[in-house]
């Protein structure tokens, strides 16, 4: 192990330019991936904020007693999809209506609006299918007259989400693939630069495993260094963008940053493994 570490570090010292190039390639690949991830995260955040506005109103019969309504609300609150269920009495409905009417507030003077159960759904259940399912079961309650949930709004949100997720997966995969290819190519150059050394190692009886190990460690270190550099660049870019007051964006959570660096290490390791394997197969 000591020998592996020594050989891996030696190669950084011997070919600093190539090592720096590899680190930079990893860093730029991860940086572009990170930028994309930032956009995706902030988009998702915005999206869930909009989504949180999805709510279902179940209007109840005028004859429904307050106790029945309260019991009904409690029952609805127990649905697995439901985050919050609240009773809206006729008075509340009126005062809300007045509020939203502004200067026309005095048009209403009687409690003509029906009472209702207002339902908000948990995250993950705000898609069209779930909303519809909950709406249907609300409709099945005997004293519920009408259920409204802005069907069109929910469906549009759903469509946007599908497109956004699809694009995200496609672009993310493409970025990751490009990163892997670039890293493998860079490490392959490093391996070729040491072809002579490898052939000498084989000549004196080194096993393939022995030859491979320093390269793998080198790849891992390169990847981690690249990951750190990418994080730094990303932080810089983020600071630059959020200098403007109107931008109110989120940065990566620390667990994601760590995952990113680990991903860099893994990329370096795999790129290296791939390049060395290919080389050893050919000589």
């Amino acid at each position, binding site marked *: 192990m000591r020998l592996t570490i020594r050989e891996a570090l030696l190669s950084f010292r011997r070919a600093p330019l190539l090592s720096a190039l590899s680190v930079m390639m990893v860093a730029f690949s991860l940086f572009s991936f990170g930028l994309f991830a930032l956009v995706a995260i902030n988009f998702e955040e915005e999206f869930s904020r909009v989504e949180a506005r999805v709510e279902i109103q179940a209007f109840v019969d005028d004859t429904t007693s307050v106790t029945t309504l309260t019991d009904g609300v409690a029952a609805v609150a127990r649905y697995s999809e439901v985050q919050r269920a609240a009773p809206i009495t006729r008075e509340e409905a009126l005062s809300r209506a007045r509020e939203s009417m502004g200067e026309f507030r005095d048009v209403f003077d009687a409690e003509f609006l029906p009472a209702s159960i207002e339902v908000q759904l948990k995250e993950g259940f705000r898609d069209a299918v779930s909303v519809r399912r909950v709406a249907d079961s609300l409709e099945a309650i005997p004293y519920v007259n009408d259920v409204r949930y802005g069907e069109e709004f929910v469906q549009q949100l759903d469509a946007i989400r599908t497109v956004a997720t699809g694009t995200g997966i496609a672009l993310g995969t493409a970025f990751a693939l490009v990163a892997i290819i670039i890293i493998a190519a860079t490490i392959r150059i490093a391996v070729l630069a040491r072809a002579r050394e490898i052939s000498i190692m084989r000549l004196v*009886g080194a096993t*393939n495993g022995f030859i491979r190990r320093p390269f793998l460690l080198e790849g891992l270190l390169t990847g981690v260094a690249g990951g750190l550099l990418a994080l730094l660049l990303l932080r810089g870019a983020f600071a630059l963008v959020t200098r403007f007051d109107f931008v109110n964006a989120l940065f990566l959570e620390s667990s994601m940053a760590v995952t990113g660096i680990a991903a860099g290490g893994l990329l370096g390791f795999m790129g290296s493994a791939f390049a060395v394997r290919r080389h050893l197969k050919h000589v």
Partner: protein
Amino acid sequence: MIRFLHVTKEYPRTGAALKDATFRIGKGEFAFLTGPSGSGKSTLLKLSYADERPSSGEVRVAGMSVSKLRRREVPLLRRKLGIIFQDFRLLEDRTAEENIAFALEVTGAASNVIPGKVARLLQQVGLGSKAASYPNQLSGGEQQRVAIARALANDPYVVIADEPTGNLDDRATRGIFQLLQDINMAGTAVLMATHDLELVRRADYRVLELNRGQLVFDSAETSTPATTER
């Protein structure tokens, strides 16, 4: 030690480089391998250190069959051999002693025995004072001595030398040859490819001669060596 039995090596494009070669080099023997360029000397040597596999026939070296050797067993064979080349093949960015130590480290030698052994090997090849020199600070002859020390690091049964004096002047050639003779005297078999007939004539060793891939002469079987007739 080295045994070739009806060995043929064919390359896809250039055809047969070695045709039906049969010979045997015993323990502690010294043999020259001669012949013009392209006669198959390097191919024969490559077959003996498993850099190539025979197309047909059998190659046995140090008790292992090269024809049947699995990929991962190749290093085990190499550790029983010492291989020397015309171009030395030293690692340029390592000192003489690091080059030798490298061969020991590669085979998993205990790290506490390496420095002593390296020092002994350097003494043996007459480079005790050049341990810390890099290859580019050494003359050709000295570089080849480092290569020989490296070849001896794992106490080989056989030293395989491919034109070891090809890049050296007369004086260095004599020195290297003497060193190989000393190694042989100590009991290690040596198979040395060369087209330096002067060298071949100087010593009374066995001579194998190749021509166009065919083993045309073996002094162990005839009393009049072809090479000395010319």
